[in-house]
């Protein structure tokens, strides 16, 4: 269990790793790798629902996308411009040079390109092997098989997954261009046209262009047009910061998309250890917070929130204890708001897909299957996990209430075992923090 915990901690790096391309363009609060993978997974799933070519498994595509940047944990992200960039891309002096470089597509010879790709592949393979080496056998094997298939890029599934990832980057580039104007959208358009081969994704790209470049409100292909709208709405979860952390004044708190990314992978791994249907597990986890696009991120503290800063700080030191009637009223309101939001968000998708997404969302809410009940509890555990990560960075972070919560809310034996593992990790860090505070006082 400790090796799995270690893997989850490393995974956290993808939530804070700002995508290099957006950093180069100087985008404000740019998307992280986790933000990108979250929406890429949903994009691929949505497009695959109308994919008539072959029968690709949604779940396998989602899993492939979720892991395809795992190697970045150690080797960072690369961009096609890397060999042309100055060493320190953050230096103010270099910003002018960087701007010039970004004005055109990188001109690298085919031979150089091939050499660079092989070097990168080796680096990524080594990094990936290091990351998964200590995971339990079955999980490790599943990840290795997916990684190998992705690396070869021969199967329809791996091609579809890769191109979905690229398509998400393109969609993001156009959104940033519209919002901040800093992105060279014409170059991105050239780049994407060169890189897409899958006919369905090519069709989708054309709809994206009509919608975001040509500003057309009416689309010729209604289904795809609606999908563009859906995915741009879902993209809002990349910048929606989770309320619980915002209220506790965490610096750079995670977004709902980042949380969902980590939770989906944790649910997958832990679900596999428990012998659950992980294809269902990952889909439930991926959709569980989609309603927040319109309903916002609500917390159990909502019924008792106050404006006074000091009173708020004290409030978060303890778990909220709210009278039953008030709690019930709040829960009913929350449910109604979220129900309306998930129905509205998915209303323009093909009906079968809408019903699937709503069904999965309800499963997490109401515990209709063992997978739904499990994912709902993983959600609680992921919150504790993240709270510990914030507490490690700032020992004044009010952590106690998370421990109280988890002991009341989780009853799954495997997750309780995992909680014990977290407890051990927390105890070690806690002792170290106390020692550090003591030495500082001296």
């Amino acid at each position, binding site marked *: 269990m400790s090796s799995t915990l270690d893997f989850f901690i490393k995974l956290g790096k993808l939530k804070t790793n700002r995508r290099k391309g957006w950093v180069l363009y100087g985008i404000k609060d740019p998307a992280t790798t986790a933000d990108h993978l979250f929406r890429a997974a949903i994009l691929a799933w949505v497009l695959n629902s109308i994919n008539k070519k072959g029968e690709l498994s949604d779940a396998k595509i989602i899993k492939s996308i979720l892991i395809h940047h795992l190697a970045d944990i150690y080797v960072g992200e690369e961009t096609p411009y890397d060999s042309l960039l100055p060493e320190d891309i953050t230096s103010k002096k270099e910003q002018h040079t960087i701007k010039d470089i970004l004005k055109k597509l990188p001109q690298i010879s085919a031979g150089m390109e091939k050499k660079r790709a092989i070097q990168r592949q080796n680096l990524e393979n080594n990094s990936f092997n290091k990351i998964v080496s200590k995971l339990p056998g079955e999980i490790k094997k599943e990840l290795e098989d997916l990684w190998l298939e992705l690396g070869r890029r021969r199967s329809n599934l791996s091609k579809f997954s890769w191109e979905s990832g690229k398509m998400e980057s393109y969609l993001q580039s156009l959104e940033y261009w519209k919002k901040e104007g800093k992105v060279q959208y014409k170059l991105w358009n050239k780049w994407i046209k060169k890189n897409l081969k899958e006919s369905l994704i090519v069709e989708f790209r054309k709809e994206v262009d009509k919608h975001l470049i040509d500003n057309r409100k009416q689309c010729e292909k209604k289904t795809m047009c609606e999908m563009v709208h859906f995915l741009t709405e879902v993209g809002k979860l990349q910048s929606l910061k989770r309320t619980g952390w915002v209220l506790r004044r965490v610096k750079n708190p995670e977004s709902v998309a980042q949380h969902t990314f980590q939770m989906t992978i944790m649910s997958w791994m832990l679900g596999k250890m428990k012998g659950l249907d992980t294809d269902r597990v990952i889909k439930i986890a991926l959709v569980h917070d989609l309603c927040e696009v319109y309903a916002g991120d609500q917390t*159990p503290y909502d019924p008792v929130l106050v404006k006074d800063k000091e009173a708020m700080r004290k409030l978060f030191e*303890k*778990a909220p*204890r709210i009278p*039953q009637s008030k*709690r*019930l009223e709040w*829960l009913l309101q929350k449910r109604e708001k979220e*129900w309306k939001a998930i*129905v509205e968000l998915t209303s323009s998708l*093909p*009906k*079968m897909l*809408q*019903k*699937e997404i*709503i*069904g*999965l969302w*309800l*499963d997490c809410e109401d*515990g*209709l*299957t*063992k997978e739904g*009940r499990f994912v709902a509890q993983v959600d609680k555990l992921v919150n504790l996990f993240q709270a510990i990560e914030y507490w490690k960075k700032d020992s004044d972070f009010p*952590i*106690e209430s998370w*421990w*109280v919560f988890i*002991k*009341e*809310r*989780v*009853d*799954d*034996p495997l997750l*309780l075992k995992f*909680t014990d593992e977290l*407890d051990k990790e*927390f*105890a070690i860090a*806690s002792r170290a923090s106390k020692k550090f505070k003591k030495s500082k006082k001296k």
Partner: protein
Amino acid sequence: MDLEREIYLTKEGLAKLEKEYEELKVLKNQRTKNDTLTTASSLEIDSEYSAFQEDLDLLESRIAELEIILKNYKLILSPGKGSPKEVLLGTTVIVEVEGQQDEFMIVGSLEANPMLGKISNESPVGRALLGRKIGEEVKVQSSVVTIYKIRKITYNL
């Protein structure tokens, strides 16, 4: 909840699951008799059963799960007349925790809904409270120790 473990249900929880079982069987019959009823365009989004409307496998597995539950459940029984002396399954406990008051009903895992104050008997807090009496202080151990003082025990089922 693992269905291999003991399945405890309150009367209310049992009635709810029995109702769901009957309604899902009707839904399944409709689906198998007249599949056109369930084509995408004919279905309304119904918050209660929409999860099962499109997915026959899911509908069947939920019916199978409900059958296991309804065959193997143990009903949470009333502890008899008068106030219960100790915390049992189905009792409501008023506790003082971190200087605040809260109310928990101890139920089986399937009915647990901590947001509604229904705590699973298999959760660390549920396990620690079971069998304890009014006035006792119950410690729930972890790096952060929480003490629950039992103020009142009632049986409202």
